[in-house]
């Protein structure tokens, strides 16, 4: 016998993961291709690095807005922009 998912349970996690990944790229307020979405037991974790603290906050805001029932954890950093301390010599 085929078991059907309870419609009330929402879409399977894999589709949610795919939707979040696309939201991160296609939402003009985010437009990030370098954020990885990883499914953990208790939450979806967002990893990656962005160019400003504002962008990090915006990512969390937009994802939480669109998926209010999905527990999201963020581990997104802001990329350093200091002058280099070493050069690479290429003979």
């Amino acid at each position: 016998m085929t078991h059907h998912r309870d419609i009330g349970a929402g879409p399977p996690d894999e589709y949610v993961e795919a939707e979040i990944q696309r939201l991160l790229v296609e939402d003009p307020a985010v437009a990030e291709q370098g954020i990885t979405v990883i499914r953990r037991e208790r939450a979806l974790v967002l990893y990656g690095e962005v160019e400003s603290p504002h962008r990090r906050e915006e990512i969390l805001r937009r994802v939480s807005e669109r998926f209010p029932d999905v527990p999201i954890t963020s581990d997104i950093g802001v990329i350093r922009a200091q002058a280099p301390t070493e050069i690479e010599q290429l003979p």
Partner: protein
Amino acid sequence: MVIRIAAVGDVHLDEDVVGRFRPALEELPECADVLLLAGDLTRHGTEAEARCVAEEFGGLSVPVVTVLGNHDHQCDQVPQVVKVLEDAGITVLEGNGVVLDCAGGRLGIAGVKGFGGGFAGRCASDFGEPEMKAFVRTTTDSADRLGAALRSLDCDMLVALTHYSPVPDTLAGEPLEIYPFLGSYQLGQAIDSAPTALAVHGHAHAGTERGTTPGGVRVRNVAHPVIKQAYSVFHVGDQLDTDQVSPIGQSGSQRSWS
């Protein structure tokens, strides 16, 4: 002969980022003859974002040469973006090249954005639906223009500048499944068709810095999330002197970046 090349890609500028790179950029004349930007200068490719790039990377004491990236195409304002950049003195390459007179010799830079397609044995083919053929032909055309530009330059040292990767080596860290969207072996083939000394690209935020084409050309992924500094500096040549490079270490290491 030593030519000093600074490079960074994927800086994705908008108003919220303006000023972050500038302190490090002011140090460029001490350590580099040229700054190469490997595409994705903006978030969405708008004229307003291009003005942010012009403000951040314009008016430097070294020449700035760039290619555009896929983000710079998002809003279909490429002509406006290019104009803003060129008005700021930034040279924008797409299927052409430029030769700069540096203290160490004439540096030739050929650039294209490039495109995806994948790498030898695991790549898309010019076959089937029109959409598939258009995809692969975009890559082939881009690689052909890069090769022609590289071979046309009269210079002492040749550098290839792309947004997409010419080799899989510098993609290590990215999911294998998306390699075909990150670069193409045809770009590597074009780079190997000329006596190229160095190939610089961006696009792969989770990739790694170093790679080599099948023909032995050094490839560097300078995407900002990969290098984690304002720019990388490469001293390319046959008379390298370690004493010449110490000042940058002293300067950069003292800067706080919190």
